[in-house]
């Protein structure tokens, strides 16, 4: 693992709570550490909660935690801290380096950590996660779904199945849209030599000139 070994875990930086200002434009929420949270597994079946339905799939004794707790950092942690914390934990829990007896447990934790990092490293996703936390509807697993609008509850079975399938679609396209937005921020960087990118850069340049 040359890549991970090259950057030794700077665990000290991650663990110390910092009082530094957060990145511009990002709202940071202070949270007491012992606020109870609902517990959901990091993986497994996600039920469509249809605007107020019940949470499912409790798991064995998991202290209610947020992603920040999982990574061992403060909610105001900077992206660097998040990355460093993730690497440290990934190294610790990766199935390849864990002792055989603890492989299953470590794999599970590894995946949780992965998900936490994935959410928190992306600025827009982190922002929506923070908002959800503030509303108190969040949990350890956060899919970035936007809040459901009210929908009717009465369906007979066939329709309900269709609904489930379609809500599965919603999660998937919401992810895709998020990814599209993320991609578009870097799409017109100088390395992109496509005709369209060149035209867009030119248009940007000329409109910047005019301003």
């Amino acid at each position, binding site marked *: 693992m040359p890549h991970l070994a090259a950057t030794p875990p700077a665990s000290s930086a991650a663990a110390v709570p910092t009082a530094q200002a957060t990145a511009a434009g990002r709202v940071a929420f202070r949270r007491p550490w012992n606020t109870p949270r609902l517990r959901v597994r990091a993986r497994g079946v996600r039920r469509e909660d249809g605007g107020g339905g019940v949470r499912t799939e409790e798991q064995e004794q998991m202290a209610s935690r947020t992603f920040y707790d999982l990574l061992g950092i403060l909610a105001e942690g900077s992206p660097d801290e998040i990355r460093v914390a993730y690497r440290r934990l990934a190294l610790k829990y990766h199935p390849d380096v864990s002792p055989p007896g603890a492989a299953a447990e470590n794999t599970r934790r590894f995946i949780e950590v992965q998900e936490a990092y994935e959410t928190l490293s992306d600025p827009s996703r982190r922002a929506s996660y923070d908002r959800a936390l503030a509303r108190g509807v969040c949990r350890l697993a956060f899919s970035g779904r936007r809040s459901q609008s009210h929908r009717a509850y009465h369906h007979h079975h066939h329709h309900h199945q269709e609904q489930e399938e379609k809500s599965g*679609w919603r999660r998937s396209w919401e992810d895709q849209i998020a990814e599209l937005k993320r991609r578009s921020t870097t799409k017109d960087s100088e390395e992109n030599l496509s*005709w369209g990118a060149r035209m867009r850069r030119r248009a940007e340049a000329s409109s910047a000139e005019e301003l």
Partner: protein
Amino acid sequence: MALSTTFSVPRGFLAVPARQDSHFASAVEQLHGHKLIQARPLRPRRRPACVSASLSEREAEYYSQRPPTPLLDTINYPVHMKNLSVKELRQLADELRSDVIFHVSKTGGHLGSSLGVVELTVALHNVFNAPQDRILWDVGHQSYPHKILTGRRDKMPTMRQTNGLAGFTKRAESEYDCFGTGHSSTTISAALGMAVGRDLKGGKNNVVAVIGDGAMTAGQAYEAMNNAGYLDSDMIVILNDNKQVSLPTATLDGPVPPVGALSSALSMLQSSRPLRELREVAKGVTKQIGGSVHELAAKVDEYARGMISGPGSSLFEELGLYYIGPVDGHNIDDLITILNDVKSTKSTGPVLIHVITEKGRGYPYAERAADKYHGVAKFDPATGKQFKSPAKTLSYTNYFAEALIAEAEQDSKIVSIHAAMGGGTGLNYFLRRFPSRCFDVGIAEQHAVTFAAGLACEGLKPFCAIYSSFLQRGYDQVVHDVDLQKLPVRFAMDRAGLVGADGPTHCGAFDVAYMACLPNMVVMAPSDEAELCHMVATAAAIDDRPSCFRYPRGNGIGVPLPPNYKGTPLEVGKGRILLEGDRVALLGYGSAVQYCLAAASLVERHGPKVTVADARFCKPLDHALIRSLAKSHEVLITVEEGSIGGFGSHVAQFMALDGLLDGKLKWRPLVLPDRYIDHGSPADQLAEAGLTPSHIAATVFNILGQNREALAIMAVPNA
């Protein structure tokens, strides 16, 4: 185009006979309406999407009177939709849907496809700003809601009629129709052109192409996506997936799965769940890859997306389009959310949004019908029953199918190929009779032709049944793969000549010209349904070179048919004389022979008895017949329902080289005029083209110097 549908008909409602003659139709409709208003509230029954087969339905399942459309009444142009809330947009969609149903019930036209895209149309016009934002509709037959929302609602009663709205999008009709369509799979190409043009001009508008999964089976769609991915210009492609690839997506006996491997890939996209576990495992691979974290994330996403979303999305991704979906195409919330998101994101490059819809949605009869009410005649909205006037003869399409079946019964090498038009070409009958000898290749005429050439190489006898105007798409294959190598592929070109309500996009004006100029092709045209049967037999018998025959839309004229539709092969290159006369000879090709016969009877009243001949073959021409006509008559007029460069030109060429024009012969070729004839009723189109029997007779009189009679014939049509 009238297609037979299989659906349950409500029987015996209030003791009204189930079969409704067109005379009584309106009275019955009123009776229905009256009773229905009294008997039940004005809401349609909500039916689940599953099929309920019940022959004892006694109630109508839809409104019989047009319901009020208060919201739609306030919308004349898309700009009026901008301030509506999502709830109001949903109501608008419902009103729009009922509006479409009631309009099409009065005029006939394409219904199912329009119903499937009502929500999509509303969402598109709400989010985007047509006409600055370009919205293109592939094929165009689903554009009825679009037309209603873009200032043409009051003209909907004229849909597909002479001087009325076109059945497809048409640039000359409205600035909201950005691109004329009719043939499929052209919009991604056109949209890319518009996007690149916008980029070159420095514009900022959006370009959206709506294309169906059927149209996606055509190669041009891939050519366009490939180029779009390469150029990386911002544009949106909406893949409207309703699992209807061919027309109809059903045989005579019931639905069949869509043809082609792509459809199964698309449906896998719908059913795959986000496999988050797999994604986590995939991320575990990243540690091997190296590089900075951002690159890692991007690489993993690329890899993971292929694993998450199934093979189909990777196909689009490989072509360079960003895939979003699947999306419920009947959920306006979702559609508006996604479209707004994509619209507000700068620098997206080409994006493909995979939208799942149901053809015929919202009209219970359409949802249940095997053909989803793709193309309907006028019908009664409450019962879904179409008003088809009974005809004494079948359509030429039917006769062709029967004749081909008769040939295939005796010759096991005969196979048939069509391009997603099993209903329109009649080959669904062939499919039922010989399930393994009929090939539907999807909307892929080019492939169909070369595929047939390959079959011919193996000694089979392929009959390619492709509409005259659709065969244009496969023309190079006809020239290079079939004619050049002299492979015996038979082309059955339906919808030759003017086609009525579908208009110039479907008009088969050019096939005589483009087929007869090929050195090895035998080109023939039947003048009636019996001749059609014989020509099918003739084509089956021609085994050393390619051959083709063309026949029009419409029904036969009522001549005696060979027993069991089994024709006898004609002598190649021999025409026939139908009427003997003198001084004037009318040499017709194909269905024009009937106009010639009618013209002859018109001329006879005030002029000489006219000779009428049926050329039968354009290639090889019947030289002896032409020589005898030219030498024994003063006037020779050829008539064909085709463009310049066809039959008349070949006759002219022959006569000129043979010296027949060196004498006193007056020679006039009558062809379709050198312009596109707009959609309308067949009679109106023919009059517009100047090929009616009256026109032909007037031409004769004018040449003979009988100008008064010429004017009289034209002044009193059908005199």
